[in-house]
């Protein structure tokens, strides 16, 4: 259905995307000290948010991760072309570019295209970029390396206080 209206895609010019991207970025991240991302990065950021949505993470964060991903792909011949083609498919709805769509429609577009290799590649790499990031760790309560603090032996490895008989268990 959505994919059959490919003709609308051509009506949405690259400049329009850039404007939308800038708008979306500035709306979602009012403290927009970060530079305005290019269309490719902005669309990738929207894709990453759709794949791994965390309400507590800002658009600036997703854009930073997307920029790192795009930079990585730039070092592999043909990889950016594959990404662009894939993003093109996501943009092929008759409604609006992917990055400007409501989350529920973005999700449905990702579902329809999940078999594409650019999405498989993103599903492999994006979790590494996202969940190795200290900003995400701070959000979800993971601290990373502990050896410099002497581990958790004296820092609460056994501090659970809500279990029925926590004190009785040894």
């Amino acid at each position, binding site marked *: 259905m959505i994919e059959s209206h490919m003709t609308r895609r051509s009506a949405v010019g690259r400049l329009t995307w850039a404007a939308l991207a800038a708008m979306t970025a500035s709306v979602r991240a009012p403290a927009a000290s970060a530079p305005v991302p290019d269309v490719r990065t902005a669309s990738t950021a929207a894709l990453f948010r759709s794949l791994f949505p965390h309400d507590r993470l800002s658009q600036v964060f997703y854009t930073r991760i997307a920029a790192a991903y795009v930079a990585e792909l730039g070092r592999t011949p043909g990889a950016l072309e594959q990404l662009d083609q894939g993003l093109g498919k996501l943009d092929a709805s008759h409604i609006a570019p992917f990055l400007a769509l409501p989350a529920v429609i973005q999700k449905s577009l990702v579902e329809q295209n999940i078999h594409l290799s650019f999405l498989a590649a993103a599903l492999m790499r994006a979790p590494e970029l996202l969940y190795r990031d200290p900003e995400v760790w701070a959000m979800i309560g*993971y601290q990373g390396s502990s050896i410099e603090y002497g581990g958790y032996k004296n820092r609460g490895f056994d501090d659970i206080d809500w279990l029925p008989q926590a004190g009785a268990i040894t």
Partner: protein
Amino acid sequence: MTRFSLEDESVFVVIGSGAAGGTLSNELARKGHKVVCLEAGPRLTLSDIVNDEAVMFDKLTWLDKRMATGKPNPQFPVWGCKTVGGTTMHWTGACPRLEPTEMRARSTYGELRDTTLVDWPITPEELAPWYDKAEIRMGVTGKHGMPFLPAGNNFKVLAAGARKCGYIDIDTHNMAINSISRDGRPPCQQLGFCTSGCAISAKWSTLYTEIPQAEKTGHFELRPESMATSISLSEAGRVNGVTYLSGGKTHTQKATGVAVAGNVVETTRLLLNTRSARFPHGLANNSGLVGRNYMRHFTIQVIGVMPGKVHFNRQTHLAGVVRDERPHRPERGFVGGFLISTVPFSPEILAKHLLPGGWGRDLTSVLDKYDQLAGLLMTGEDPPQLSNAITLHDTERDANGLPVPVVHYEDHPNTMAMKTYAWKQGRKIYEALGAEQVIEMGDDIPATHNMGTARMGHDPKASVCNPFGQTHDVDNLFISDGSLFPTSGGCNPTLTIVALVLRQAEHINGRIHTGRL
């Protein structure tokens, strides 16, 4: 530093420096024999070990090309290590013994369709004193006066839920991780990075125990970054040298005897890749069983989103066990049993494996509650099947020009029945404590327990090695790793490997002293 000449024919060559190779090397060197240990990977120091899973994965893991058919990941079927210390670098330290009923699997379980179930050719009574020696050597907690490790949060959740489910055989597990200072190594500091190498050496690894001890004897030489490629045979049909790649060159070390301890995939590859007129199908493979009966325990997990904070990443990974499902109770619908242990995962590993291929809010809503997660791991017996096998690819070659190993594995119906039951029981443990959500994680982390491909037995037609790990076909060739296991039992294999190797070392020592090696 002791150095042996390549021409020294009195040297005993051990291939691999992990639980089997490192321990065997040390034991033989202590008995006064000259030992050269060839290790494919580099020698790290403690300062190379950092609390970063991704960095340590790259430093420790065997990443040479492998292939697979059937169930395993086709690019990465087996998670092993290529480093001095082998898999004792990334192991969790869990040291359960095989149950006597497991060592008599065929007698206990009866006939199981499409399997090659057998009884071990060693009795539990014969192995018991070697288990004692291994536990004392490794400092296993809860044994021989070594205190248990303290109870961490993830264990407390497991224990409380398990008790509500009626389980009673529960403690912080028998672990080769120091609970007190011992053997010149400090007690566990609860770093929470057990599988990335223990940065303080509280966890037993041959890198900083067996290997340096062997070096102190003056009878031992470790050659890291030395990849064994073939074993040479004399006219009389005895092994007399090992050829290996090091520094881009080929070398051959002469030998009086050889023990192969490369972990199952590499041990199989070395034997199958050593072909001669006498052994056209691979060294010591007259039985045709080298590489066959490949076993790997299933490892499945259950994650609970608990009603309060757990911080499951902040404790010794596997210091927590429930043993009540281990015994053989066929009324559950399968033979054999499984262990339930604690396990944590980093955010990245959860993101990739919680819901394989998963994305969206189903996944991120769980990750958002990372500090409320509790995790348990279930490891169960895998019956031997002739069709599960490691072979060499006809044409594919790796960067060293060696044939690429192909791992073929499929679950037996017994394994599937056990997993289904295990997931249900694991789920109950967290539900009993009011978990907000419980997620069953699939068997999709690559195998770390590898067994069975050079099985021990009395009959040379039905086994590769005798009960001492000596090959039936070649008198002075030994296999020392998990390849020897005739059946897998329902628990982590390392302690059993060390016990078997200590027993094997005494056997080799006796043969040398009586002039038979």
